[in-house]
């Protein structure tokens, strides 16, 4: 994290601690502005100003405060909480205030997180090979790219003119630029207005980076998850919420998206997550291949891990740290997907701090500004035209952990008012190990219509019709199930029994997907589509047979159809599907 040791914008005066209660410390005589970063106590624990009243300043501290006593000093940096932006953010793992956890381990010499240790968010000494993309004499505006460095095997990091170096519309001449090896703080280009452009930028986390305007997203974020791509797609630049009770598979769904979503960059924020789960990500991602290019997944990923036992104030800030990093890559013209697991922990961190401040609580003890903060966060997502004229997107996918799985609680409700995709996880489905346990009756995507043209161009003309067919069958099943609960399946007429059978294939083969199977874990849209057409083919043939007088028991008892359930695990699925369709038709036709 950075508070620019170099800049001294405001003369600052040190204060003295007046009282300590958990993560909230108040100080006397501190000359500070709201949201300034301060160092608290003899150990220099990092904190942020959250309230000023008379000469008393209230600070939330990002580290454990045991042993901190009144009378110890508080030092103001005069800068708001900012992140270091530059090459080196990918393939990194940070805590909630962008301290690199691997560097901390080395510095502390212990597997435990000690206090008062600081490290910059990016390696300030590492040299990168800079390749200019403009020449001396070229005119550049704010945000314009002046050159690239290879950040990882997958991603070229674009070096940009800082957005606050020039006014909008203003341009200036490049006076010096050279290829070569530079560390992130050295100037790689000089501009006529006196600006030195380096690879390193700083940005206050609570402020959105500027953009030209927001556009309607029209390309899907393809996730390789059948139920998501097939029924409830999210757009690049879209927002989604995944609420669900514990054990319903929020984290697995988030991990699947982080692994297989076709974004250029993934920012994964583990906000109050389990330590072991973050370790799994740290161990798995470097070994997993990016399905787009075969490179290690970590080469496009930045991880922020603020586990549940790390200080609560850093949990409050980690979401902002993540989205600011995401915006920086968006400015380069990349499609970025941000996963936040879980936004409820973030909201609870706000509640905890708010209650220590003795603010008047809103609904269920959450602060009255909860809805506003959630809205601000999700509004930073979108499909943008950047200030440099490129297009980039930030997709935000937030897990929500409603207490007791009750979706009527404030975090879920306030989130649903903002996001356009809703993937409702269901404890009942999870209990019967139907994974991903996304409830197809409750979930929705408001992007469907604007994404259909893409799927129709790229995958199949009748993509949306097929989807509608599947939805209709599942709806009918839901209605029929109510009757079955009362009278049993055998009391239904034959055609309805057959509909149940078709719906069963939809549920078991199509909607379920095994995240732990090497092949089934990623399902390209083509395969998703073919699977649906196979089930429809079975449906058509079966109803023809039924019309021809074949009893439903015989249709259900055929041998080829159950192999629909194995399409998911086939690597060479095209051939398999073709053969299977033919066999299903042959077998069913042989019955009449």
């Amino acid at each position: 994290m950075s508070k620019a040791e170099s800049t001294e914008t405001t003369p600052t005066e040190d204060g003295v601690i007046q009282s300590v209660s958990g993560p909230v410390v108040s100080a006397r005589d501190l000359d500070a502005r709201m949201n300034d970063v301060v160092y608290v106590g003899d150990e220099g624990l990092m904190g942020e100003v959250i309230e000023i009243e008379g000469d008393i300043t209230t600070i939330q501290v990002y580290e454990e405060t045991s042993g901190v006593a009144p009378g110890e000093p508080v030092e103001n940096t005069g800068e708001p909480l900012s992140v270091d932006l530059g090459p080196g953010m990918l393939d990194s793992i940070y805590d909630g205030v962008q301290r690199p956890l691997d560097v901390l381990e080395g510095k502390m010499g212990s597997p435990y997180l000690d206090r008062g240790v600081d490290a910059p968010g990016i390696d300030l000494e590492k040299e990168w090979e800079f390749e200019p993309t403009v020449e001396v004499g070229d005119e550049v505006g704010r945000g314009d790219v002046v050159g690239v460095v290879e950040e990882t095997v997958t991603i070229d990091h674009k070096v940009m003119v800082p957005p606050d170096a020039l006014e909008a519309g203003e341009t200036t001449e490049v006076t010096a630029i050279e290829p070569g090896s530079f560390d992130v703080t050295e100037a790689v280009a000089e501009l006529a207005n006196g600006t030195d452009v380096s690879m390193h930028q700083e940005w206050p986390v609570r402020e959105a980076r500027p953009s030209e305007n927001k556009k309607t997203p029209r390309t899907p974020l393809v996730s390789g998850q059948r139920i998501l791509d097939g029924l409830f797609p999210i757009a690049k630049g879209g927002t989604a919420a995944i609420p669900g009770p514990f054990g319903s598979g929020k984290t697995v769904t988030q991990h699947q998206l982080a692994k297989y979503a076709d974004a250029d960059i993934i920012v994964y924020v583990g906000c109050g997550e389990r330590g072991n789960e973050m370790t799994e990500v740290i161990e798995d991602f470097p070994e997993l291949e990016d399905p787009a290019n075969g490179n290690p997944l970590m080469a496009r990923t930045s991880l922020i891990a603020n586990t549940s036992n790390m200080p609560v104030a850093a949990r409050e800030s980690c979401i902002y740290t993540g989205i600011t990093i995401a915006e920086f890559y968006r400015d380069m013209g990349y499609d970025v997907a941000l996963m936040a697991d879980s936004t409820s922990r973030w909201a609870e961190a706000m509640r905890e701090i708010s209650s220590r401040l003795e603010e008047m609580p809103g609904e269920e003890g959450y602060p009255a500004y909860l809805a506003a903060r959630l809205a601000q966060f999700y509004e930073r997502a979108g499909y943008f035209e950047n200030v440099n004229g490129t297009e980039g997107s930030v997709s935000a996918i937030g897990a929500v952990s409603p207490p007791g799985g009750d979706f009527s609680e404030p975090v879920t409700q306030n989130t649903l008012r903002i996001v356009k995709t809703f993937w409702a996880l269901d404890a009942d489905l999870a209990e019967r190990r139907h994974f991903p346990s996304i409830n197809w009756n409750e979930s929705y995507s408001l992007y469907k219509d604007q994404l259909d043209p893409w799927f129709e161009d790229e995958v199949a003309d009748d993509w949306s019709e097929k989807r509608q067919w599947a939805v209709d069958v599942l709806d009918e099943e839901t209605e029929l199930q109510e009757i079955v609960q009362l009278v049993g399946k055998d009391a239904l007429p034959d055609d309805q029994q057959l509909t149940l059978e078709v719906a069963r294939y939809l549920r078991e083969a199509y909607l379920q997907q095994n995240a732990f199977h090497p092949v089934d874990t990623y399902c390209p849209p083509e395969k998703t589509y073919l699977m649906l057409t196979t089930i429809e083919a079975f449906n058509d043939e079966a109803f023809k047979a039924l019309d021809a007088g074949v009893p439903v028991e015989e249709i259900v008892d055929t041998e080829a159809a159950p192999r629909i359930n194995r399409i998911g695990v086939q690597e060479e699925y095209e051939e398999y599907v073709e053969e299977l369709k033919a066999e299903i038709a042959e077998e069913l036709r042989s019955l009449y």
Partner: protein
Amino acid sequence: MKEYQTITEISGPLVYAEVDEAIGYDEIVEIETAQGETLRGQVLESSEGVVAIQVFEGTSGIDQNASVRFLGETMKMPVTEDLLGRVLDGSGRPIDDGPEIVPEERQDIVGAAINPYSREYPEEFIETGVSAIDGMNTLVRGQKLPIFSSSGQPHSELAMQIARQASVPEEEEEGEDGSEFAVIFGAMGITAEEANEFMEDFERTGALERSVVFMNLADDPAVERTVTPRMVLTTAEYLAFEKGYHVLVILTDMTNYCEALREIGAAREEVPGRRGYPGYMYTDLAQLYERAGRIQGRDGSVTQIPILTMPGDDDTHPIPDLTGYITEGQIYVDPDLNSQGLQPPINVLPSLSRLMDDGIGEGLTREDHADVKDQMFAAYAEGEDLRDLVNIVGREALSELDNKYLDFADAFESEFVDQGFDQNRDIEETLSIGWDLLSMLPKDALNRIDEEFIEEYYREDDSERKVVEAAD
């Protein structure tokens, strides 16, 4: 060290005292009453001139003349390998008339968070010998897997069975790997009778010599319960990460711990969260549960089995709810199954082990384990659903396959789950019973199992099946 006789207010478990020096947050305090009794406490809030102290033993007997001493340090736990075999009270003082404990180190009980980068991902299967756990919700080393129970259920028996039987199969075969197994038992507010059962079991099985027992009983001061689990976990971390033990921590009952948190919150007049529990309960619980795990380059591990009794058997109550969001799964003890006499009465359907998928399979348990588990979950859930239906329409109205699912569900409970608290099944046996049961279903209903495994393990021949007849 300065002594003050400046107590200004006594309220519930809290004492407020005026001071003229800087007192650190969380610092340890000794209060000496007029009767000469010494009580211990901890600074909850420190301001210039006045501090709020929470007194572990309760405030009775304290008056405004009591003297207050600040020890200038936060709470520490004296740790040493010699703690094994000892019984301590809830604040870590020996109560077993044994020799004095000479600590090797004194460690801060507020453990620092383990850097996620330094952790090692848990994937070593622990064989508990309980089929419902090993087969369906496997426990691995470094996991935190709570038992969700309710009053009057045999959760203690289950915990004892796990403590007794838990082992790691490969290591037994290869002989010891140098790491020993230890159990740390933290009792918070349980009754003396329950405590005696645990102690008797520990003594009977000889487990005591590899155990450390912390006892805070129902009639011990409630506030002390807030430090007991921290003492327990500090000891566990020391034994695991300094001395290389594989430590199994049993904490019972977390509900009492949370009640104590609420009591302190109320005394401080904090803004309460859900059902009056403090708003920071999630953070507080996380600071306990997250102290399970493994660390790269260290031999030992800390595995936690916290037990909590859900008030009203309601898992949406804040205590189980927040716990479930932190721990890596949960095991449900079910009152209905208990009244049917199942031992252990584990309901596998809502139970879950999040770390299971990486701890099972070829080389760890057996290659078909994951598939068998998935299929049994699906089949048992199906059977459970059908039971409701049978009550309305009767068995005759159901198809042949549905009837098989019903038989499966019955057999699953009687053969697989109900094994008794004394039987120790290895994983082969557990899976073999699983195949016995699955073979009751037709082959093509086994859609979650790889065809290869069906070929190898499915029992075509009725005579191979032991279970079917028994189930009918």
